[in-house]
């Protein structure tokens, strides 16, 4: 059988575009991420979403749909300031921490989600960093193995996102020496845990004040964790001094 150029061109079009049409019909033709991570195929976690497949194009909302991590926790962990935490894209973290000197990005989110949700995650050969609030949340709330605790402490870094460049980083415990049980707990009596003008709602959560208590005090759903309490008070016609006193009382309770 001999072929010339015109039939070959026709065959080429038929196979390429016909193949695309058939694969579309079969649901194989996907040019965008489905925003649903692939599942573990074997082991104890078979069928559960695999954090290693979280992509930069996923939003915090997409992650919340597949894992037991709320967008609010993610915004708090990664110090994201957003009116709509669910729509924040993971890939935007890199820009947020561009000048931090550390690569905080998709891998950081994968690690955080895996450890937070208690799912396996292979860190072999990877240098992953977590902002200190993320590490504190993991150390304070997640069920980590001793090896994971050591790993989280080692990869915790004090970084300031671009939008909070005016804020001084919180004084942190030494990463190497911090006992795991104290990492997320306020140090009693220190000024560090005083509610001030620059305190954000995320700080209150970190200091151990339950979200429900905050909502009760402000009489509204939990605001953006990155929002300053003072800004929230003035925007909602509340007296900051009164609010501060009430919140400080809860912070002090949490210390005990």
């Amino acid at each position, binding site marked *: *059988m001999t*072929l*010339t150029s*015109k039939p*070959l*061109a026709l065959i080429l079009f038929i196979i390429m575009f016909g193949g695309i049409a058939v694969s579309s019909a079969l649901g194989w033709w*996907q040019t*965008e*991420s489905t925003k649903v991570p*692939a599942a573990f195929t074997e082991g104890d976690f078979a069928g559960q979403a695999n954090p290693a497949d979280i992509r930069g194009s996923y939003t915090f909302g997409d992650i919340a749909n597949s894992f037991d991590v709320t967008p609010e926790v993610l915004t708090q962990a990664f110090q994201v300031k957003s009116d709509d935490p669910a729509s924040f894209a993971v890939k935007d973290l890199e820009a947020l921490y561009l000048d931090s000197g550390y690569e905080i990005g998709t891998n950081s989110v994968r690690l955080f989600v895996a450890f937070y949700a208690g799912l396996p995650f292979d860190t072999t050969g990877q240098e992953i960093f977590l902002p200190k609030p993320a590490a504190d949340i993991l150390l304070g709330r997640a069920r980590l193995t001793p090896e994971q605790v050591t790993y989280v402490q080692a990869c915790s870094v004090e970084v300031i996102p671009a939008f909070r460049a005016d804020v001084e980083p919180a004084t942190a415990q030494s990463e190497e020496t911090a006992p795991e049980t104290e990492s997320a707990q306020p140090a009693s009596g220190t000024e560090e845990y005083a509610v001030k003008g620059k305190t954000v709602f995320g700080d209150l959560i970190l200091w151990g004040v339950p979200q429900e208590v905050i909502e009760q005090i402000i009489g509204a759903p939990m605001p953006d964790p990155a929002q300053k309490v003072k800004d929230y008070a003035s925007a909602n016609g509340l007296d900051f001094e009164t609010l501060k006193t009430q919140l400080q009382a809860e912070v002090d309770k949490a210390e005990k």
Partner: protein
Amino acid sequence: MVTVLGKRVRLFRPHTIWIRKIVQWFFFLFIVLIAVNHTLAESGSAIPILSSASLHAVCPFGGVETLYTLAASGLLVKKVHASALVLAGLSLLLAIFFGPVFCGWICPLGTVQEWVGKLGRKLFRRRYNHFVPTKLDHLLRYTRYGILVWVLYVTATSGTLIFEAYDPYFALFNFWSSEVAPTALLILAATLVLSVFVERPWCKYACPYGAVLGLTNLFRVFSIKRAASTCKADGACSIMCPMNIPVDNKSVVRDHQCISCLECTSEAICPVAKTVVFTTGVIK
């Protein structure tokens, strides 16, 4: 051969595979539109009827790069989508039957190199595409296999598209974007400059996907075949071959670099009918 003003001159029919040029234009514009629309989509102003897929979604080599990760973990390498696997499968199917037609007819980077090569052909005429010494040229043609092995290794071990930072195809259709690495732009520039001297330099010496598809030349169903009984041995087929394959001394072209462009056939440059043909059968 004819004698003109006392000089013996080889005359070739000016035939070319014109439909291949149309197909190349089509796929070039197709990819340009997709690349531009992808950029527009990021700013929320995409043209609705056009695909706004990323370049990675429409590059079959992504399907090859992700194979190890897919087999090992069931996941695709970051930025690669299922469509790349589909395209890799379709391109391989075409190659098994017809050789690397993807390279010769579809790949927009190959097309652009051919366009730049026209300038070189005008400037250097017969010297064009014959600057590299034969022995060196022969050796260099195996570097693309080394590059293929390296790309597959680093992709498998890192789980990311490392090759993106060196890929002139990605740079060509994304040069306006901050996603393109300076190394990729440099390699693209070098490829375009070299194309003035050598036809398809990237395809010949460096393309890892060409290396994959090129292997099908060894067993493909349709091959370029030359009928020795009617061949006038004027060398036209060899001179015309963009990949410098000496078609005129082969009965069947099994060269790993053939791109199935058909420019050597009796339909194009060969002046004798049914002498160099694209066929499954045996010709004498």
